[in-house]
């Protein structure tokens, strides 16, 4: 396993744990319809949006402080993983678009809470897809 793969594995595990934690915290807050009236729910979401990336960065720096030696093969894998990330983000947005259109078509609009959820989900998917892209990107390259 290369240093880059190890880093991606740690990143994936930390990202997954944080995501599960966030989902549990959100579900415990109840119905999304309360988002407009419940300032506590809104505050929690803002906290998550700032806190999760910060926690992620701190944990990554604490676990992987050593500089990673990278060569051309690693850089090629990173390029590949960014394509995986891009595709994952596009499909996430497509899923949100279709889902929200089907759920709210014919109405004035969608609850504003979804703006935050779309942003948070894209952030999560992008991070996880990037890690997976690196983990599986070292296949045959010729």
């Amino acid at each position, binding site marked *: 396993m290369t240093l880059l793969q190890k880093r991606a594995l740690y990143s994936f595990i930390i990202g997954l744990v944080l995501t599960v934690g966030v989902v549990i915290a959100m579900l415990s807050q109840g119905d999304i319809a309360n988002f407009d009236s419940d300032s506590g729910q809104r505050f929690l979401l803002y906290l998550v949006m700032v806190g999760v990336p910060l926690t992620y960065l701190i944990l990554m720096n604490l676990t992987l402080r050593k500089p990673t030696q990278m*060569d051309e*093969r690693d850089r090629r894998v990173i390029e590949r993983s960014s394509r995986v990330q891009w595709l994952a983000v596009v499909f996430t947005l497509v899923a949100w678009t279709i889902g929200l259109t089907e759920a709210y078509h014919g109405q004035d609009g969608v609850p504003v809470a979804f703006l935050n959820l779309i942003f948070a989900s894209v952030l999560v998917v992008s991070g996880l897809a990037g890690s997976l892209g690196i983990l599986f990107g070292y296949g045959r390259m010729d």
Partner: protein
Amino acid sequence: VGRVGNRIRRLRFDNGEITQEELAKRAGCTRQTIIALEQERYVPSIELAFRIAGAFGVPLEEVFQYEAD
């Protein structure tokens, strides 16, 4: 599409059994890349190919060969 083969493992043996780590250090890449090259799971850039040949002190074609289909 052809296939790029190499004699890195053989050349390491012929050069006093230098380690993959040592060769990686000389060629400026990681040991994992040397492993991938020896297993022919990776085809290097022309620059890295020259650096590996230089590490052995031999011409490029003594290390890498191209076989057309």
